[in-house]
């Protein structure tokens, strides 16, 4: 089984840009060659970022998949990129043969040298993520340079940002805020930046179909990998996100393409987001206003389930050898997660979800060689691989949640970050009452039998669950049970003061 293709001129640069962006996410290149296209994928070690770059067969000068319908292999990213160190290459021939477990890359240089690299391949599991972006509430398209300028306002060491989308009707409804993890400390000493954006002046298109404020917190470095790819490709960038816990999807937007057939390559970055909302005072004010306006429409069933709609479970993947392994099903009997038109021709690949962050509706498989990350979003890889029950003992869960309560209380006692414009609003009371009650409910949930709340934030790795219909409502029926209790008892917030910045201006 083998795949061969040749590249010249412009395609070389595009392939190199794609590989460079993939290297910023993961160390392992997962290659899947189909007759119509070749897909390069990678996932980071903490399983919180997934990037795929797809090149259609027309992209190449010549492209063949021989003796089979699909070729799958893994390569070390640094080996592949070392091939592209050579400047002034006139032609590249790529030949991957799974029988010999070798990938041969031959470079024909402009100075006459012919360099033939032979790289060993690795046996990696198939990787695929499917996300139904069309159901996401917030979708925007922007020039890549505009997003880069916006992010240049944040200091270089910042790890995560929160993107807030307020409901329509609010002035400058899109905020981009620094997110500083309170677990890492230094909250009071860190520089906090907030940029308020007028979509009509900054974005090429902006749609927010959510009725209330929503926000997502993502890793900035991973997000910039897609930005650099879009910049190198000369495209705009399209972002789709929904609510905390749902992934953020970023992809290049080709300004002059009239349809899919005009473009012979594409990319997609799926970033996990924090389950907790970090929208800040503006989002809470907008949410409080929306709730007050829609009072009576929400019911609060018992149990305080904090699961995000869509849910997730533990999945297993089809190995390259073709063995079938069971997937976890939802109450309706189908695979958990929403699907989109981007599902691979191989069909749905079950996915692994991650404690603290999840890809509801996104199915992502972890390659066998991925190292277990120690981030707060990583699962307990070793226990999972050994097939043991990954659920910590109830006593451990209780301890973890109690630690959370303490941290929340400490956070509430801190003064708000300096430098923020004093509008006399949400810093007064919101965090104190709501946060504590919210976490108290979480403690109660953890005391329930294991398996009912697999998405309980950082409570631990996800258990193997079976979903009953009652526990797995559809997205439209999702009732955030805890939210009414989390509404602060304080009076409605004053509207935010008008900023001195010009509309659409960036800090």
């Amino acid at each position, binding site marked *: 089984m083998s795949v061969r293709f040749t590249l010249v001129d412009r395609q070389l640069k595009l392939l190199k840009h794609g590989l460079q962006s993939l290297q910023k996410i993961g160390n392992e290149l997962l290659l899947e060659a189909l007759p119509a296209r070749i897909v390069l994928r990678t996932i980071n070690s903490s399983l919180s970022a997934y990037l795929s770059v797809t090149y259609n067969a027309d992209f190449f000068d010549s492209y063949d998949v021989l003796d089979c319908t699909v070729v799958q292999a893994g390569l070390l990213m640094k*080996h592949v990129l*070392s091939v592209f*160190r*050579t400047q002034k290459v006139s032609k590249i021939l790529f030949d991957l043969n799974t029988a010999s477990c070798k990938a041969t890359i031959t470079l024909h240089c402009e*100075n*006459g*040298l*012919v*360099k*033939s*690299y*032979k*790289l*060993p391949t690795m046996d990696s599991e198939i990787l695929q993520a499917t996300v139904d972006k069309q159901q996401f509430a917030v979708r925007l398209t922007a020039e890549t340079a505009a997003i880069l300028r916006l992010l240049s306002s944040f200091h270089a060491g910042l790890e995560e940002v929160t993107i807030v989308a307020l409901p329509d009707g609010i002035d400058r409804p899109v905020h981009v805020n620094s997110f500083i993890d309170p677990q890492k400390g230094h909250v009071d000493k860190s520089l906090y930046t907030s940029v308020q954006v007028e979509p009509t002046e900054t974005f090429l298109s902006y749609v927010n179909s959510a009725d209330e404020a929503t926000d997502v917190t993502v890793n900035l470095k991973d997000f910039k990998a897609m930005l650099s790819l879009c910049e190198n490709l000369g495209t705009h960038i399209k972002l789709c996100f929904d609510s905390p816990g749902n992934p953020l999807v970023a992809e290049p937007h080709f300004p002059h393409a009239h349809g899919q057939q005009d473009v012979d390559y594409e990319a997609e970055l799926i970033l996990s987001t924090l389950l907790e909302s970090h929208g800040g005072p503006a989002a809470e004010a907008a949410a409080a206003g929306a709730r007050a306006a829609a009072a009576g429409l929400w019911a609060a069933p018992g149990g305080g389930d904090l699961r995000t709609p869509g849910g997730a479970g533990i999945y297993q993947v089809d190995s390259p050898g073709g063995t079938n392994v069971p997937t976890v099903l939802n109450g309706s009997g189908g695979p958990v997660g929403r699907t989109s038109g981007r599902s691979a021709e191989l069909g749905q690949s079950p996915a692994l979800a991650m404690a603290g962050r999840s890809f509801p509706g996104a199915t992502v498989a972890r390659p066998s060689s991925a190292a277990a990350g120690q981030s707060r979003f990583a699962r307990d890889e070793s226990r999972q691989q050994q097939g043991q029950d990954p659920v910590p003992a109830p006593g451990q869960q209780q301890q973890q949640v109690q630690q959370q309560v303490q941290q929340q209380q400490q956070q509430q006692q801190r003064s708000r970050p300096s430098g923020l414009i004093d509008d006399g609003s949400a810093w007064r009371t919101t965090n104190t009452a709501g946060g504590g009650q919210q976490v108290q409910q979480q403690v109660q949930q953890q005391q329930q039998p294991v398996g009912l709340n697999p998405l309980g934030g950082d409570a631990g790795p996800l258990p193997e669950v079976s979903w009953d219909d009652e526990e797995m409502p559809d997205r439209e029926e999702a009732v955030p049970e805890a939210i009414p209790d989390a509404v602060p008892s304080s009076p409605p917030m004053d509207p935010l003061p008008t900023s001195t910045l010009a509309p659409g201006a960036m800090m």
Partner: protein
Amino acid sequence: MAQASIASVRGLVQVLQSIRSHQKLPCAVTFEPDTGLSLRFLDGGHAMQSGISLSISVFSSFQAPASITFFVPLSILLEAISTVASSMPHEIHLQYPGPDSSLLITTTEDASARTSICSYAKVATLAHHDLSSLDDMWDLQDACSQVILSGLLLREAIEDLEWTNGEVEFVLKRSPMHFALQSIKQQSLEITFPVHALDGFSCHAEEVRASYKYKHLKAAFTHVAQKEAWSAKIAISSRGVLRVTHMLTLAGGGPLAPLEAQPLLGTLTSQGHAQRTCVSKFVILPHEEERDGFCGDDD
């Protein structure tokens, strides 16, 4: 007393850097009244010799009443010359013996310069070492294969071969004409040179293969800092000994001494080019596992 002055300070520094080594071992410096200045260096593993030959014509003045050879640590000599030459002086002077039998290096500024700064360095010489000639490792009676090609191509190829972190094999084939370098480990890389770039190709057998340690090849090919193309000759004897000869051009400099005959690689060059050319030479023994066990670690 032997003295030499050279105006091409930047060029001298570049040429000397082509044989640089981190090892604190002595090199032999020889003032020859007929042929000019030469340096010879033997690495710690005794598997590689390197040397530079600067003909009398590249110096603005050269005096050597008799053949004088002395020994200085190569790394210290290069450092001293680089330091005094860092201000890009007009000329650099070498004098031996200096005070306390040291090598005296001085620089002078141009007469039209606004400031007049004289820098000097005294490099202590070492006791005599038994350092054989480069040609002693090369048996002229042995049949050899050889090829002349661009030093830039060779440098690029050797730099790429660092990726495999293994020994490098030279492969020459007589028919069809073929010259390639390859390194095979868990990952492998083979670099084939274009036929049109191979000058003076001759192969004493149908196929010639010889392997060498990468660090020796790196020292022989990648330390040449010249950006312009230069010619390099590769010769491999029947015993696998590799001899590399670089024809380097000294950059910069003022008026030259009268032209002398320059038998350079058997090819004719322009008079101006010949005056600015110096020879950098390396002789490398082939990599054999038995040798490693016998000679120990080079470093």
